């Protein structure tokens, strides 16, 4: 028994931690989908851009400045993407906005190639959360413990915001009915912007936690966690925040269990097999609502 825990605890801890990081990205996907019915393909690249922002700002600025600046940069980037690439297409067919999203994704990726020259950049060490701790027998970084706690705190705050504030009420209303929301006096463009701001904010936090576990950032390093977070959002039922969080934790833990049993090669394959499985057998995911076409 002791040996079993000894052998598997690190994987479980890693699973919970990476699950939390996926969750922070997945919320951005699911919230934007909930309001715009759009898969924001650029979200994973915003996540990567947050990592680069941290790399470059931390090179010249102290952490207590570079960290908040990185968050602000990411939020502004997410906001700008929406204003430039999605807002002008508000009344266009959904397919056009999706293509625009794919375009933005490649644009951001290529900008990052251009700016960085494609070289892997060393991600800065954030003190304290990079420290090593030992739990029972497992040695891990502090970030492993902080991630799930911070994720849950942020999710609880978000749920409070959505359920108990005026802007949260407006977000729920806009997610159901643009036109009637306008008739209530709600400026839906502002509500949509707030959604992107929240999603990007959480992606920035997720990026800091995620890249602390890795030494380097490349323009495509965000693609895989971004995709997995997307799978998590679909698995949980896209549009549902609790769904995205639970889906992300399940995927994070499952991936690491697969690694624990020695099938590391297949851990990514598992995630995408899960996507196919969900889309075939329960397209609405764990908590997704059956969507009716608006009349």
């Amino acid at each position, binding site marked *: 028994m002791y040996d079993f825990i000894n052998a598997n605890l690190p994987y479980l801890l890693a699973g919970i931690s990476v699950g939390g990081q996926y969750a922070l990205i997945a919320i951005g996907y699911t919230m934007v989908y909930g309001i715009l019915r759009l898969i924001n393909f650029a979200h994973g690249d915003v996540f990567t851009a947050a990592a680069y922002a941290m790399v470059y700002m931390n090179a010249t600025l102290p952490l207590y400045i570079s960290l908040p600046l990185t968050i602000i940069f990411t939020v502004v980037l997410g906001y700008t993407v929406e204003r430039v690439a999605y807002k002008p297409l508000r009344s266009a067919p959904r397919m056009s906005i999706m293509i625009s999203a794919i375009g933005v994704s490649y644009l951001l990726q290529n900008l990052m190639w251009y700016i960085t020259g494609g070289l892997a950049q060393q991600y800065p060490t954030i003190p304290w959360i990079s420290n090593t701790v030992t739990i029972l027998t497992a040695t891990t970084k502090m970030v492993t413990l902080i991630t799930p706690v911070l994720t849950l705190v942020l999710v609880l705050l978000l749920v409070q915001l959505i359920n108990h504030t*005026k802007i949260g009420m407006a977000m729920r209303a806009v997610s*159901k009915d643009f*036109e*009637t929301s*306008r*008739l209530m006096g709600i400026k839906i463009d502002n509500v949509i912007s707030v959604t992107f701001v929240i999603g990007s904010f959480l992606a920035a936090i997720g990026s800091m936690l995620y890249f602390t576990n890795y030494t380097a950032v490349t323009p495509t390093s965000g693609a895989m966690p971004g995709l997995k977070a997307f799978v998590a959002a679909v698995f949980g039922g896209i549009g549902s925040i609790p769904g995205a969080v639970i889906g992300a934790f399940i995927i994070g833990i499952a991936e690491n269990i697969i690694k624990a049993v020695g099938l590391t090669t297949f851990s990514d394959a598992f995630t995408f097999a899960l996507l196919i499985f969900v889309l075939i057998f329960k397209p609405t995911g764990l908590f997704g609502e059956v969507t009716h076409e608006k009349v």
Partner: protein
Amino acid sequence: MSLLTVTDLKVSYDGIEALKGINFQVDKGQIVTLIGANGAGKSTILRAISSLVPIKGGSINFDGRDITSLDTVSVVREGIVMVPEGRRVFPNLTVLENLKIGAYLHTNQKEIETNIEHVYQRFPKLKERHWQLAGTLSGGEQQMLAVGRALMARPKLLMMDEPSLGLAPLVVKEIFDIIRRLQQEGITILLIEQNANAALRTSNYAYVLETGRIVMEGPGIELLHDPKITAAYLGQSRQKVQ
């Protein structure tokens, strides 16, 4: 005194003229009805006033101001509030939240609380069910909620798009009672109805629309007894009743 004056209003969808120059006015404190067949352009008029569809020509004057080019939110701020066709309550919000969102542009919490109480007095059912999701209400209750939600904005002009559509006869009667009571309280109402009989009885003045044009107008009761209207919009059932 005229509260709303619509002059030569033109609206096109995909090159097809839905409104071909509409002129009408709504006097303060009155109930004015637009009747006409499906596709005559009734809803389009309300949607154009609320700036939900682009206006191609003409002008809309409200309370002494030109509101033709205002966006939807600004029109609401001016005091024109719509009860949309099919009620369109927010099914994922509670009854209370639906009322609160009706007062979205208002910031005085005390006033909002008072207005909620007013709506509850008017529709006690809503108070009973204030915690329920609006999607779980019956059609009639949803219509009450849609009206209550609109009243939360303290409208100067209340526009109602087919409030009786799809409701049981008893509920329809109740809806028209409410409309009359709102008028007594000083709210001006612009009404669209399929139920021409009840609408004409209730309204001070009415306009008849046919394929994007106003073809007839007059006090509600006069139109009610006009043989052309009787034949076109009231059908045979009314004559049997009389």
